[in-house]
């Protein structure tokens, strides 16, 4: 076991906020090594139960169903010229330290979908390097956290190439004593002319004992770029409550519905009926007599 500082914030800030990184002890497990040469027509489904080193190359879809405890996961992606890779990670129950690193060549497209279904203690880092001209990164991240569970995410998107695009949409629900930190960085490097980047996080807080930290960073060393960042944290908008109530739905039920809708919008991006259905079953939203 070795203690390491993980998920370092791209631009450190006020120390007292305690958001500059997180410390974890990493197990010395020897990882299982998996190489996926994905195929455009094929979906590769992996069930990850322990430490893993995964390499993904060439176009295709890889779905990782993660139920590992005390595991370290490295996922390395290289999207070559024009390749389209979709990586879907579903974190369940256990605790893991996960790191995704991705390099995007010219016109490559990486779509990352992450779902955190109340994992106990997860540290998840995502490093994306858009060195390629016109490369595209889109991500949809959803989390539902309850009990004493903790989640620490650090997403760092470096836009280096010309005319790159990035778009990140995060939706989450916190209940009980859940603790969550989300750091999201859009980093426009000098030379990334014509690039655009957007990121948005929406957090629904459902109990007074939750703790939410949100750190949306934009770094910019290029004139010809457009970046936007947004976050909204709190309760359900009173207008939403009134609308749903006016259709006969009582308030406590509304919270339930909206909470599930946050995850639902991420689930529907998975694009694999089998996985979507198993995730909905886990959440108890699968229709019983479809």
């Amino acid at each position, binding site marked *: 076991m070795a203690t390491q500082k993980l998920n370092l914030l791209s631009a450190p800030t006020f120390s007292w906020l305690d958001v500059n990184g997180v410390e974890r002890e990493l197990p010395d497990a020897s990882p299982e090594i998996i190489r996926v040469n994905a195929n455009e027509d094929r979906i590769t489904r992996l069930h990850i139960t322990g430490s893993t080193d995964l390499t993904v190359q060439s176009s295709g879809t890889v779905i990782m169903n993660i139920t590992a405890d005390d595991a370290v996961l490295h996922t390395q992606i290289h999207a070559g010229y024009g390749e389209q890779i979709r990586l879907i990670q579903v974190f369940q129950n256990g605790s893991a330290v996960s790191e995704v690193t991705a390099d995007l060549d010219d016109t490559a497209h990486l779509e990352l979908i992450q779902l955190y279904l109340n994992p106990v203690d997860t540290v998840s880092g995502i490093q994306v390097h858009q060195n390629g001209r016109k490369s595209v990164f889109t991500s949809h991240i959803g989390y539902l956290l309850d009990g004493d569970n903790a989640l620490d995410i650090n997403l760092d998107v470096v836009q280096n190439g010309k005319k790159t695009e990035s778009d990140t949409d995060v939706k989450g629900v916190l209940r009980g004593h859940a603790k969550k930190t989300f750091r999201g960085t859009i980093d426009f490097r000098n030379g990334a002319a014509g690039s655009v980047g957007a990121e948005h996080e929406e957090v629904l807080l459902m109990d007074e004992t939750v703790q939410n930290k949100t750190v949306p960073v934009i770094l910019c060393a290029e004139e010809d770029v457009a970046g*936007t960042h947004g976050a909204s944290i709190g309760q359900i908008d009173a207008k939403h409550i009134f609308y749903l109530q006016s259709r006969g739905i009582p308030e406590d039920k509304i919270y339930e519905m909206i909470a599930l809708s946050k995850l639902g919008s991420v689930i529907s991006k998975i694009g694999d009926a089998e996985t979507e259905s198993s995730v909905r079953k886990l959440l108890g939203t699968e229709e019983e007599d479809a």
Partner: protein
Amino acid sequence: MKQKTQVADIDRSLYDFRYEEDAADFLSSGITPEIIREISEEKGDPEWMREFRLHALEIFNRTKMPVWGPPVDGLNMDNIVTYIRPKSRMNSDWNDVPENIKETFEKLGIPQAERESLAGVGAQYDSELVYHNVRKEVAESGVVYTDLESAMHDPKYAEMIRTHFMKLVPPTDHKFAALHGAVWSGGSFVYVPAGVRLEIPLQSYFRLNAKGAGQFEHTLIIVEDNAYLHFIEGCSAPKYYEAGLHAGCVELYVGKHATLRYSTIENWSKNMYNLNTKRALVAEGGRIEWVSGSFGSHVSYLYPMSILNGRGAHAEFTGITFAGAGQNLDTGAKIVHQAPETTSHMDTKSISKSGGISTFRSAVVVKENAVGSRSSVSCESLMLDDISRSDTVPAMDIRTDKCDVGHEAKIGRISDDAVFYLMSRGLDEQTARAMIVSGFADNVSKELPLEYAMEMNNLIRLEMTGNVG
């Protein structure tokens, strides 16, 4: 064309006390308790203040530099004493003032006497007459406006100062707060009694008799319940100090249902390390309104903090930062919601040009008991070329579900369409861009008194085109 400008409060004699220095003693040891005792003695500090300074020095010596923010390598921390007692100051004359500062004075149309005063090398600019009038009106309303050192010796205020001085910003806050605690000198004390609403803004440059509103000045303002005050600090003309460290401290106490508006246009000369700490404590139903323009300095660390301590307290921060060549300006605000139904709003703009670096940094904290609180942050950055840099580093820490926190950030450039539109109406490109940038900054200019807003626009125009036009 603007002819007149405001004059900064500079007292050349700040650290001008005699000291038989033996250079060899300080070069490696930095500040010693002996130096602090000496400063304390020259100022005639009461006993508690001398102890306070010595204690702050201990804290300074054991506190590490911050691990974030712009580099301060240019500051010689091993020999910080040179910033406190610059030798060169005593011999400085107009010829030593850098050319670019002289040009700026010229372009802003400041008379020679004022220029020398602002540059800290000439006689004090005499605005005694204006000051008298203001002083009369202020005194009639029961408001106390004096320099902090005199107030500390006035039996009427001594206790008030002892119980408030560096209580909001303790020396343990950070290394430069500790330094300030040890060597502070000069500054303002304002006391607004309950229910008094002062209609005219108090401007720090009126206070010319103050000993050294300069590098380590301390501002302490107490606004009692239901009172109102607008305090204006600084001015648009550049303040020049050869020794480039400013570590001031501002502590504001806002009573129940009182309002304090604190406006600053800061234009330190571009060799200055501006490591300033400002903080407000707001009671039930009170309001703190910060209006802040940062144009000067080589390096700035500036994040006025609002602590919303009573139900329904409100904080507002409106700011603009313009970082040009050779500048690294790290600015923003901190807001702590620690009472129910408190509200806050932050609206900031930053501009980076000619290799300048601007960073917007913020923290919004909503504590467990701040139920029903609301906070919104909007920050927008403009990149004027591709050799500059603009970073946005906000953070939110939310500990209750019954709140509503929003954050919006945007970064981009001047739109070609906008420039084309203005040019199609006959403006040259430079003027068109300057106008667009002024418009971008209107969140701050519309919050300032007219003459300040005009000065700020002139300053922006100067940065953009080299002329006030």
